[in-house]
């Protein structure tokens, strides 16, 4: 590894940065809670028998009329808000995580190859990346969603919704990875240790994966963190625009869209609690990303 010194320094900086520690703590708690939702959530919001209209529109416990069974209140159907949020976050994180992983593999793969081989392949990949960059993420995702609606029969499209959304997000995020990987490879490739490996006649795949990749992990980790946050935002935005996930399996964005109907009424919790939850989650991930960026780019501190 870039050595024990580097690692201990990272740890040292981490301990010294209360913001980063708090962010990490919040992110870990939220992500764990979301992953464990089926086991720790009070009710299952997908199970129609688990809630009833009688419990509809109850405020959170700390407000008058709150019910201790529903910590964060209920929606108009009588669904427990806490459970909905945990399940929603689980779905949001699953989509964002998968999209990020697909983008990472695709982007890093193309970026490594483009940077290493250069020439025409590089030109083509980067030209596509440029066009992709000119088309902002939301536009790309919307287009892909629109195209899939046009190509796929309606029922199939609904079934594949999750996959389409994930793909749409992944395709709008791969460019970041590809550009970062390529730029780092360009720098690394001209370094003598890579030249030495090329000269010795090592296999290009080995040079890319075993020599170059470990040396460019730092910036890629930063991008991965920041992109996870972007993916969560993107999913929420798509769901908010109504082209994301359907209302029967609501993600955080869908919950907020539904909550919008209560913007003008007194039932503030239906809108604001999922909103705050989403923002806190994204802020903490972004804070972590910022910390990592500073760590790998000490010049900007």
């Amino acid at each position: 590894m870039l050595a024990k010194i580097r690692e201990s320094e990272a740890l040292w900086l981490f301990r010294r940065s209360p913001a980063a520690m708090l962010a990490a703590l919040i992110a870990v708690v939220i992500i764990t809670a979301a992953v464990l939702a089926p086991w720790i959530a009070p009710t299952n919001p997908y199970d129609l028998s688990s809630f009833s209209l009688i419990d509809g529109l109850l405020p959170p416990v700390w407000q008058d009329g709150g019910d201790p069974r529903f910590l964060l209140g209920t929606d108009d159907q009588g669904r427990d808000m806490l459970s909905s949020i945990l399940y929603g976050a689980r779905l949001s994180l699953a989509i964002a995580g998968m999209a990020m992983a697909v983008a990472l593999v695709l982007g890093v793969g193309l970026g490594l190859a483009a940077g290493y081989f250069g020439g025409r392949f590089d030109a083509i990949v980067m030209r596509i990346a440029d066009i992709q960059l000119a088309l902002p993420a939301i536009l790309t995702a919307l287009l892909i969603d629109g195209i899939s609606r046009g190509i796929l029969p309606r029922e199939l499209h609904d079934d594949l919704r999750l996959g389409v959304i994930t793909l749409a997000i992944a395709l709008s995020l791969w460019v970041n990875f590809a550009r970062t990987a390529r730029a780092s490879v360009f720098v690394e490739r001209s370094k003598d240790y890579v030249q030495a490996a090329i000269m010795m006649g090592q296999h290009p795949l080995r040079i890319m994966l075993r020599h170059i990749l470990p040396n460019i992990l730092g910036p890629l980790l930063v991008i991965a963190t920041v992109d996870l946050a972007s993916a969560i935002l993107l999913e929420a935005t798509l769901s908010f625009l109504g082209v994301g996930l359907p209302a029967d399996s609501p993600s955080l964005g869908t919950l907020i869209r539904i909550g919008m109907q209560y913007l003008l009424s007194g039932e503030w919790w239906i809108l604001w609690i999922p909103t705050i939850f989403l923002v806190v989650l994204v802020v903490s991930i972004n804070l972590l990303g910022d910390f990592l960026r500073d760590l790998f780019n000490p010049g900007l501190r």
Partner: protein
Amino acid sequence: MAVFILKRLIQSVFVMLAVAFLAFSLFSFVGDPISQMTGVETSLEDQARLREELGLNDPFIVQFARFTGDMLQGNFGYSYRTREPIGAMLLDRLPATLELGTVALIISLIAGIPAGIYTALNPRGVLSQSMLIATLIGVSIPTFVIGILLIFLFGVQLGWLPTFGRSGTVEIGWWRSSLFTVDGWRSLVLPGLTLGLFQLTLTMRLVRAQMMEVMRTDHIRFAIARGIPWRSIRYRHALSNTMIPVITVIGLQFGGVIAFSIVTESVFQWPGMGLLFLESIRFVDIPVMSVYLVVIAFFFVVINLLVDLLYLLIDPRLRVREAA
């Protein structure tokens, strides 16, 4: 220099051709235009005749050429959904989006650039640190949440500004503008802010990072060692070197403005192109989708051309080639 501009122009034409190709592929491969245009009662012969009339049996390349030619003449085809000419639909919506986007971009630049400079020059200050934290939260709040917040605060709680729609417009020729009445401005403020805030955080962070990098370069250290007044070091030497990369990104940001205008227009029910696009996606209105794509790409290419020209003005390394 002329060569440089010419090259960029040719490049732009190719980018536009590529986008047109993409749009056309969308148009011809996604869904069958005939079945979209006709109902179940149309006979197969009629369908075939229509197909022939529309030239859908021609070779792909001929169809593409016709498509491009039509586009160039401002003939954008008809919407599947409303059966209206798309050109007129877009023209109707264009001013709303352009005004919204311009106001947002101006907000982001006017506030973002000075804030970036300030935080770069006083990195350890309390104000800088709080501004940085604010931007971090800024990039973490989705645009639609910012919109909801603003509506809630200024529209619902305080009741100062309208919560949705575009009112108080004045028609100047075909251009319907909201810039000439108080009412128009009142309805423009909240969407403009919503769209601008996100771009603002990006602008500020970028300017800050660039400026901090420039402040560490040798020529700035040399200027300090020569006792050049600090004001000149910061705003003459450092700022101009900072703006060179920043300008490119601001050009790219225009894309972001357009994209997020879709969200903003949806939150505020702002009758612009973004809302139209969103509707066309919901109803799989392929022609509108593809024309929207072409129009957006056109704006993007024009803005980037302008950025290149601006480069020529700022950077002597591009302007003067010969040795002295």
